[in-house]
């Protein structure tokens, strides 16, 4: 794929009759990150949640006719997992063959929708482990190997993404954060792992995602469609003790615009769990309806507040309850999640104090993430914060992380 892209790009370059000055830009950063547990965790022998050095290299080469080749990779020395690693974050080619069409081919990070850390119609892979241990925000998203067509025929715009090679979201797997083992019905012991079965890379398993959007004055409206697989392993196969990613289709819509001196947004989606439509299989997540309401406002200079309310309604709940084997953790029909983000900028916006909070009244769990970050100079920055999790039950999203509270520190030099 890499070589194909590079050679296609070089070919495109050499075909151009009179190449103008095509700029190559080289950037990146060197980052040191450390993180440690705040409490003893019997499931986790190590005290460190983070201990890594990262060198990020970003190359961007402009080509003829608004084309561009983009490369971004990290070299990582990881003290927690005691290994070196290279992570190809992005490698894509941008083409604009006709005025109304943009094409992006290769490994790319894809984001859409109106949520802040809560996603309904954005079914592209995420890495919540990175977020929960305190890596910087850019590591929340994982690249997809995909082709994206963006069409701009006039009054509306259309994005169509094809992902031939499935990439799952990163979830806690025991290396840094505890996880609930659904086969054993408890938090996994040290060294315990779960095997996950990814869908085979066949043409019929190609994931498709679509967004149709336009503005209505100051308001933005969008319709979404997705056909692919759950990004988290929402299915259990007791035959071989593996988790898998069941088939999923999603249909949704969103709206965003000014409201009461702030910005309000609404997003909803119908999750069609295609391998368990009637809800009779308790080992596969049921279909659901999901809603997200958001509101953001700057209350005073450089202080903003964002609040979100998320609601997930399990469909065929009666069937689910009847089919659930005795002793299994029972989910509720409605899952409510509240979100709050407070941000205060200080000292000519070089210091940022932020507080992020999640709380689910139905799951009785949540997390709090206070953080201070400071731009010491234009090229040197430091950030420090904590992630504190709480929950009454081991099988809920934040409850399983109850003993994973951590403190982190990041120092980054940009070039």
């Amino acid at each position, binding site marked *: 794929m890499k070589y194909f892209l590079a050679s296609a790009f070089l070919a495109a370059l050499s075909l151009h009759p009179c190449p103008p000055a095509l700029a190559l830009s080289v950037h990146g950063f060197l980052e040191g990150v450390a993180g440690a547990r705040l409490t003893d965790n019997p499931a986790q022998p190590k005290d460190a949640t983070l201990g890594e050095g990262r060198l990020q290299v970003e190359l961007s080469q402009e080509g003829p006719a*608004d084309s561009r080749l983009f490369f971004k990779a990290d070299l990582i020395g990881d003290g927690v997992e005691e290994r070196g690693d290279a992570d190809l974050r992005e490698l894509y080619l941008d083409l604009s063959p006709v005025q109304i069409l943009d094409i992006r081919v290769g490994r790319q990070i894809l984001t859409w929708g109106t949520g802040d850390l809560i996603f309904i119609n954005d079914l592209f892979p995420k890495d919540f482990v990175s977020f929960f241990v305190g890596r910087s925000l850019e590591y929340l998203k994982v690249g997809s190997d995909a082709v994206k067509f963006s069409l701009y025929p006039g009054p509306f715009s259309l994005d169509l993404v094809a992902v031939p090679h499935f990439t799952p979201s990163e979830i806690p797997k025991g290396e840094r954060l505890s996880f609930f083992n659904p086969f054993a019905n408890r938090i996994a012991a040290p060294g315990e792992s779960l095997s996950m079965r990814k869908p085979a890379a066949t043409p019929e398993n190609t994931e498709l995602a679509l967004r149709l959007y336009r503005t209505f004055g100051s308001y933005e409206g969008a319709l979404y469609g997705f056909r692919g697989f759950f990004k988290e392993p929402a299915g259990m196969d007791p035959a071989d003790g593996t988790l898998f990613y069941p088939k999923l289709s999603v249909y949704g819509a969103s709206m965003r615009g000014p409201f009461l001196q702030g910005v309000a947004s609404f997003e909803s989606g119908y999750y069609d769990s295609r391998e368990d439509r009637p809800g009779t299989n308790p080992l596969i997540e049921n279909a659901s309806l999901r809603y997200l309401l958001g509101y953001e406002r700057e209350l005073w200079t450089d202080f903003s507040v964002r609040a979100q309310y998320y609601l997930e309604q399990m469909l065929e709940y009666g069937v689910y309850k009847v089919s659930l084997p005795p002793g299994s953790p029972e989910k509720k029909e409605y899952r409510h999640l509240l979100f709050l983000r407070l941000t205060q900028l200080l000292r000519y916006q070089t210091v940022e104090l932020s507080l992020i909070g999640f709380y689910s009244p139905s799951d009785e769990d949540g997390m709090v993430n206070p953080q201070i970050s400071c*731009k010491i100079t234009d090229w040197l920055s430091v950030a420090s914060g904590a992630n504190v999790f709480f929950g009454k039950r081991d099988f809920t999203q934040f409850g399983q992380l109850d003993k994973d509270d951590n403190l982190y520190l990041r120092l980054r030099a940009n070039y």
Partner: protein
Amino acid sequence: MAKKRAVWLMTGFSLFLLVSGLSLRASAGTPGGAEEIMRRSYLVQFYSGKDMRSKVTMRLLSKEGGERVRVLIMARRNVKTGGDQKYFIVFLQPADVRDMTFLVWKYPQRDSDRWLYIPAIKLVKRIAADDKRSSFVGSDFSYEDVSGRTPEEDNHTLLREEKYEGKEVFVVKSVPKDEKSDDFGYKVSWIDKGNFVLWKEEYYDKRGSLSRVFTADEVKSIQGFPTTVKRTMKNVQTGHWTEATFGEVKYNLGFADSLFSERSLRNPPGELAR
């Protein structure tokens, strides 16, 4: 009888037209009213040409000798002269904001729509922007200093006419009509009598003490439009100041309205970004 009334009406109407026409001409030739001076200065500063693009370099300087640099490309299109505008900004420096893009749809009568694109996670974020006085990219310039404050928001009084650095100027005092909405008590502007360039502006806080001072340090005529290519905003209370240089200024590039959209945020086209 009806005929007679019609004649009187006609005469009255003609007289009205004549008088109002005369007064219009008078205000166009030598603007007497402070409102008219501020209006024309506003148009010169923020609406020259149909559109404009410039590479802006801002040096943020502190009393202690600290310096930070912001470099960005700013493109602007007038939807209506004196009215709605669209702005597109690409950040080039510093490294942590490089390639971020920023889109503003400005409406003089209500809050702007603003979007920020964060390239590291490919996120288009809508910015809630109630506070027009908030700092632009951490500089001493506010959003309003960059995209303009509608003159109709203030009551203006012509204080005097004088010479400022060898130029004939009007000195105008402006007080916000809405006492609660802004963090300045009043401002005083020195405006060129010839081309309506704003040479100096002093902002006073609610208690009446001087808070910020704007100066135009270099003005050039570009494509016939007087353009402030170098300007300074100094916060006299903190000693922090910002010097902004507008390089590579071009007017009337013929930007299409569709360029000021989400497509450009995610993938800035050459004509806006280079």
